[in-house]
C-alpha cells in the first residue's frame, strides 16, 4: 500500500488493537493489506475474526490481496456528530469498497474531484495515520496522485 501523509488536521480515531487482531494492523503498518484466509476451507474473510464464518475452523493465515476496488456506496459527510476528530474534518467522503478479491471493506475515500463518491469508481487502498498512532487503511481516488503527496485539506472538497 502506498502511504499518504495526510494533513494532520485530517487524522481520525484509531482502531481498538487487541492481541488477536494485532497481526492485521501490523501488516497495515508495514504497508501490506492482508486478509485472513481460512486454513480449512480457504474462504477469504473480513472483518477480522478468530473463527471462519463458513466452516467454523480456527485455522487461518494472513495473505496479501489486491489493493484495487470499486466503490459500492459512498457518502459525503457534512456534519459528524460521533467523535470530535471527524467533526473537525468535515466535509469528507467515506464508503464501502468491493475489493477485487470479492470482499467488501469500509474505508474513508480520499478524493478531491468528487468522483470518489460515485458508485463503481475505482479506488486503491492506502495507508494513513490515525489519532492513536496505529496506521489504518483508507482508499484513494486516482485524483489524489502518488504516494507521499499530501492531499489538500478535505474541507476544500467540492
Amino acid at each position, binding site marked *: 500500500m502506498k502511504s499518504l501523509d495526510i494533513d494532520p488536521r485530517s487524522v481520525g480515531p484509531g482502531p481498538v488493537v487487541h492481541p488477536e487482531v494485532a497481526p492485521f494492523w501490523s501488516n497495515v503498518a508495514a504497508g501490506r493489506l492482508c486478509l485472513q484466509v481460512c486454513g480449512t476451507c480457504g474462504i477469504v474473510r473480513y*472483518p477480522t475474526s478468530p473463527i471462519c464464518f463458513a466452516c467454523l475452523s480456527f485455522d487461518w493465515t494472513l495473505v496479501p490481496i489486491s489493493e484495487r476496488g470499486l466503490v459500492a*456506496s459512498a457518502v459525503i459527510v457534512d456534519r459528524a*456528530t*460521533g*467523535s470530535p476528530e471527524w467533526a473537525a474534518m468535515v466535509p469528507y467522503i*467515506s464508503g*464501502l469498497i468491493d475489493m477485487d478479491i470479492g470482499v*467488501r471493506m469500509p474505508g474513508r475515500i480520499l478524493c478531491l474531484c468528487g468522483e470518489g463518491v460515485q458508485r463503481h469508481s475505482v479506488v486503491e487502498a492506502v495507508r494513513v495515520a490515525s489519532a492513536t498512532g496505529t496506521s489504518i487503511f483508507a482508499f484513494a481516488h486516482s485524483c489524489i496522485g502518488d504516494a507521499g503527496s499530501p492531499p489538500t485539506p478535505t474541507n476544500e472538497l467540492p
Partner: protein
Amino acid sequence: MGILDLDACIVGIGTSDSFGFNLGKSPIRLQSESFVHALADAGLQKSSIDGFITAKGMPGGVDYEEFVLSLGLDLRWATQLWSHGRWATNTVLEGALVVAAGLANYVAIANTSVTARGYGRFLRELGGTGPREGLRDIGGGHGEWDIHGIDTPGAATALVAQSYMQRYGASGHDLSQVALAFRQHAALNPMAIMRDKPMTYADYLDEPWIVHPFRRPDYCLSSEGATCVIITTLERARDLASVPVRILGGHGLCTSREDYVLFGRPGLAIGISPEAPLQPDPAQDVYHQAGISRSDIDALYVYDSFSSNLWMVLERFGFCPEGDAWRYVTDVGVGPASPLPVNTNGGLLSEGHLLGYAHLIEMVRQLRGEAGQRQLPNPSAVQWATPRGDSIILGRCP
C-alpha cells in the same frame, strides 16, 4: 383466526406527561409517569404487575432494579435487553408469550429516552452515552465504522439511502416525501414534538445536509420521553376497564451475515453483505400468522429512525416490488390522505424518538377509536414493521 393464536392482548398504554428535547426530568421520573398512566388506563393496581420487560431505553435509561425498587414492585418475571431501539417487537412478543404461558399475569414493558443535551448531562458518570459499537472488530450494527468516518447510525444509514437511490433512481425530492408526510401526521397529534412546525418542500430544502443524501428532517428527533405498555391474557382483559387490543401476529428480528445492517434491507449490499435481488422475505409470514392478507392492513407503523427506512419496509414486506417504494411514496403518498397512512403519530421523525413503543401505543389508540383528530375510519388491523424484518400486527378483539 391466524396460526399464532396467542392468548395475549394489550390492556394498558401510557406515556410520560409529554415528549420533548429537554424535559428536565430524570429517566426514572419519566418512566414512572408512563407506568402510572398505563396502570390507570388499564384500571389496574401496581400490585397486579408481576412481570417487567425493558430494553433499558437510551442512552442510560432505567434498569429493572431501579424500576422495581423505586415503584415497590414484586415481580416473578424480569427481562432486560441491550440498550437499543431495536427491541420493540421482541419485548412485546416476549410479554405476550410470558402471559400466555402463565409465567406472569400482567407484564409491563417500559422504556425511556433522555438526551445528552437534556437530563443525560447529569448522568454521565452512569455511562450514559453507551458503548461505541462502531469500534468493534465487526463494526456497528447500523453499519458504523468509527475509524473510517462512519461514526454514527445516521452516517451509516446514509450509505443505505445513497446505495438505494443510486441503484433504483430515486431523487432527493423522493426522499423528502417521507419526512414531509410524517410531519403532516404530527400536526394532528398533540403529543408530537413537531406538531406546530409545518414543513413544505421548500422548508425541507432549507434544512442543512448532515450526511448526503440526508438533511436534518431525514433524521429522527433526539428527544426525551417514556412509554409503558401492559399485556395480559384475553380472559383477564375482559375484567378490565380498557378496550383490549389483540396481538394477532408477530415476526422476530431477522439477522444474518448477508443482512445484519439494521436499517438496510436484504440484497442492498450494505456493511459487508453482498448485493443480490430482493427475495420473497420470511418476514411476510406475519400476515399468515395473523390470518389476514397485506391488503387488510389499515395503517402501517414503521421504525423511522431515518427516512429511508420506509422504503426498506415497503419492499421487505411486499407492499411494493423491489426498487419501487420511492415511486409509491412519491406518487401515492403515506400522509393523512393516503389509502395506507404510515406513522399517524408522526413517527420518530416528528413525534419523538420513543424507540418504536410510541408507534405501538398509537396503534392501540387507533384500534380503540381514541386517536382524536387523526382517528382513522374504523381500522380493524394495523401493522408495526421495521427494516430488520420484525413486525407485529394488532387488531380489535372479537
